């Protein structure tokens, strides 16, 4: 099935030619988001009371499959095992501690109000809805803000070494332009420290025999038997063995799809395969066009570039962003006098200045580079200058705050940021879109739950800094254990084993596909296709998008895909460690997924958060949202060889007043 849909090349369409809508629309009211009744601050409490429980003695009879071992998956696996369920957990890395949550640097938000600076659950909720440009579900975001405080308690009890003040209490900082200091952090390693906490909790349950960990095992497909998700098919990356795993419920926390751009700040192995296969089996995909571009990344240095490196956006607290005022100014930054520099963030956003939110700061950097004012290789960079801060605070103070980041920058670029300004450029960093889930985090496939970055839920069209870790852990530690228990408590499950026809079919398809990839024996490497796709997506579905560009991308993707299945070269065999085959399998899915992402971007004729349509901007270049037409979640249904079907989940805002996001 997977193969058939990819071998048929859709008709090529010239970029300028008007085309019919590449999707159809479902009748309204087909999606039930299952938001609880009641006032916003009681919804989660009421829902938890409604949830069915499972008798403690019966819990060990259930087997829960958890795919992914990052903050969401790992936390869910640990918490469910603590409840007494049997958990089978899978990850593609050689240890669950390596999931990409580990790379988060900045921090984790929580509405503790330890600073007495006016923070509250409601304010965190408000900021997140507003930061998400009013494209998130209020009820979900409120729950997230509520749970944020429990997360910090949990992590501290596990031994996460958060930064502390001399009094021994937890330190917090302001992050990502927030007006309150609600971000907890562990130097530049908050993600690693939180993930190690999760990993330790998992290890405890592995040691107790309640989690069976399957590292170096990649999920190839989800199996839907008798209308419910009942298991997955995996490939053992060391032996190549493809096999089925049967469970009573499947939890996926498989991260985002930033690598559709080839170059992103994600780990090399991050992929869309799990979510895309689930989508093809019936799970709707929510808002795939919402991608986040992070402004403070190290610019590309050459065509061999394999990934981009992010530096914490805390750098913008003291660094000033500028470019030369004149085109083609090749002087070294020190030689350019103050009067000939354009501090464009401070100029355009006087009240937020260099701390403007990620999407806004990124687009502003792109805008000056589009005007050929950029610096460094290819003019794709802007300066991030600490010389003022070093004069004001002293070098020692800057070293103390950012020393590790400065070292990292120097390690990668060979330039000393204490002497010359850093060069930064935006890079794809996070994807807000993901599998559509209801309030219980259940997808449109009954029994398939989705957590963390893999779902679309809480960030709307733009994620605020330090909110990803919060969402992953809220889903994993608190929401999924409750909602998955409820599912098991209220669902009558038939006995299913590996010999069920659904498992046999999916296993066969997966085997066939891997064999097929190895048999093509063409003339281009997997990476060359991935780069080609990535470049196309970055150029036409990246920081700024327009109709012509998106239509061009839509016409090109099938051609790349067609060539991929005809001309890719995957060396080696299927029966052992074969990193090319792993990557080919992932790229094949990106080549299908990209089309849906572009379709979504094309249909959303407004600018919101990370999605900027050039047609929808004000005279001074600011994003224009269109709440009349687009205040909904776009949930896409897979339709075989036909065009995808759009379902709309209307978004209503009863607690946060719909307003234009302004950071001027």
């Amino acid at each position: 099935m997977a193969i058939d849909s990819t071998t048929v090349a859709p008709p090529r369409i010239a970029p300028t030619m008007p085309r019919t809508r590449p999707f159809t629309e479902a009748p309204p009211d087909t999606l039930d988001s299952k938001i609880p009744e009641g006032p916003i601050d009681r919804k989660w409490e009421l829902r938890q009371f409604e949830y069915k429980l499972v008798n403690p003695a019966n819990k060990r009879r259930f087997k829960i499959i958890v795919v992914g071992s990052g903050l969401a998956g790992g936390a869910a696996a640990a918490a469910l095992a603590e409840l007494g369920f049997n958990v089978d957990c899978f990850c593609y890395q050689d240890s669950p501690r390596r999931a990409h949550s580990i790379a988060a640097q900045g921090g984790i938000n929580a509405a503790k109000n330890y600073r007495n600076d006016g923070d509250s659950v409601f304010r965190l909720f408000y900021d997140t809805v507003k930061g998400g440009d009013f494209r998130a579900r209020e009820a979900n975001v409120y729950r997230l803000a509520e749970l944020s405080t429990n997360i910090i308690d949990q992590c501290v009890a596990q031994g996460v070494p958060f930064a502390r003040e001399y009094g021994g209490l937890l330190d917090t900082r302001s992050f990502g332009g927030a007006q309150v200091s609600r971000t907890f952090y562990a130097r530049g390693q908050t993600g690693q420290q939180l993930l190690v906490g999760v990993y330790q909790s998992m290890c405890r349950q592995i040691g107790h025999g309640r989690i069976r960990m399957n590292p170096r095992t990649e999920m190839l497909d989800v199996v839907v038997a008798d209308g419910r998700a009942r298991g997955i098919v995996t490939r053992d990356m060391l032996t190549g063995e493809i096999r089925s795993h049967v469970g009573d419920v499947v939890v996926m926390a498989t991260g985002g799809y930033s690598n559709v751009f080839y170059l992103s700040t994600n780990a090399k192995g991050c992929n869309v395969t799990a979510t895309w296969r689930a989508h093809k089996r019936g799970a709707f995909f929510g808002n795939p066009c919402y991608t986040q571009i992070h402004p403070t990344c190290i610019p590309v240095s050459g065509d061999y570039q394999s990934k981009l490196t992010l530096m914490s956006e805390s750098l913008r607290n003291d660094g000033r962003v500028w470019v030369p005022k004149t085109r083609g100014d090749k002087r070294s930054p020190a030689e350019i006098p103050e009067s000939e520099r354009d501090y464009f963030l401070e100029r355009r956003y006087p009240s937020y200045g260099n701390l403007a939110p990620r999407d806004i700061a990124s687009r502003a950097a792109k805008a000056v580079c589009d005007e050929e004012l950029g610096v460094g290789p290819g003019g794709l960079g802007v300066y991030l200058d600490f010389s003022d801060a070093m004069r004001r605070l002293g070098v020692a103070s800057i070293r103390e705050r950012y020393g590790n980041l400065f070292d990292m920058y120097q390690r990668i670029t060979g330039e000393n940021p204490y002497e010359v300004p850093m060069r930064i450029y935006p890079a794809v960093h996070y994807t807000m879109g993901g599998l559509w889930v209801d309030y219980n985090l259940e997808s449109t496939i009954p029994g398939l739950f989705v957590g963390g970055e893999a779902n679309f839920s809480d960030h709307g069209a733009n994620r605020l800094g330090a909110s990803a870790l919060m969402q992953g852990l809220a889903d994993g530690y608190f929401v999924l254990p409750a909602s998955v228990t409820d599912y098991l408590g209220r669902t009558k499950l038939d006995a299913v084993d590996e010999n069920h026809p659904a498992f046999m079919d999916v296993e066969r398809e997966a085997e066939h596909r891997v064999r097929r990839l190895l048999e093509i024996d063409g003339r281009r490497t997997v990476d060359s296709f991935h780069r080609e796709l990535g470049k196309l997506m970055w150029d036409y579905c990246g920081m700024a998008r327009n109709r012509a560009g998106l239509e061009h991308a839509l016409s090109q993707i099938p051609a790349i895909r067609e060539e991929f299945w005809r001309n890719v070269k995957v060396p080696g065999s299927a029966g052992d460690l074969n990193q090319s085959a792993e990557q080919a399998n992932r790229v094949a899915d990106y080549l299908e997924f990209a089309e849906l992402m572009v379709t979504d971007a094309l249909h959303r004729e407004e600018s919101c958060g990370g999605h900027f349509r050039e047609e929808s901007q004000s005279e001074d270049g600011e994003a224009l949202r269109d709440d009349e037409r687009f205040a909904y979640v776009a949930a896409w249904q897979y339709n075989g060889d036909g065009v995808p079907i759009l379902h709309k989940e209307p978004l209503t805002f009863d607690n946060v007043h719909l307003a234009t996001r302004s950071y001027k």
Partner: protein
Amino acid sequence: MPSHNTLEESTRSTAHDDDSRPMQLTLNVWRQAGPTEPGRFVTYQHQNVSEHMSFLEMLDVLNEDLILRGDEPIAYDHDCREGICGMCGMMINGIAHGPQRATATCQLHMRHFKDGDTITIEPWRARAFPIVKDLVVRRGSLDRIVEAGGYISVNTGAAPEANNIPVPKPNADRSFEAAQCIQCGACVAACPNASAMLFLAAKAGHLGLLPQGQPERYRRTVDMVAEHDKQGFGACTNMGECEAVCPKEISIDFIARLNRDLIRAKLTNPSGY
């Protein structure tokens, strides 16, 4: 249509690139088809290395060539490529993670090598790290050590209010130093005895320095040390090689601390078991 931010343009040579001619390198790489196959060194001439490449990107480019030539690419582990996931690691000219201190393989850049250099690349070698293929090894033995007790037993939901447990800043900072361990295994690879004592000590030190970690401190130490030995790692002979290659520069002072805790655990049995 956006036309200024294409990746293609970024690769054009600019003032930034002008100073770097491509380097030529000779690579001696350990190739081993499978866990039980015999391995050998294979020599590759790499003609096109830019000083701005990372070490892994240099290998990526070689692999692309190998694939197009019909050879199997060199298998090596890597993931985040920003020095934090701990997936990558190889012996580069006899040094775990290569010549630059405090740097994981993925963050090592080719500007630390010279045109004409010969580079010998080997996998981590230890009984507890069996080779899977080429430069890829299994490091599950490190996970086993953590599973034996490298955690604080707290169920989700059972945590007290976070600020009820004040931690003196020096302890928190010291704990963080140990917690920086990325579990890459370089300490084992570099140790003349293939001992994982630095890893183990970092894990025990991270938790043992915090008040939350006290109730299980001695039991944890005893159980993790026993598992370390069971996994076939060697004994620490206090050489300090591990500390020198650790990408996070974790100090062997933590090993002294671990030893002290184990002795105390065995002599006075403070955990009462």
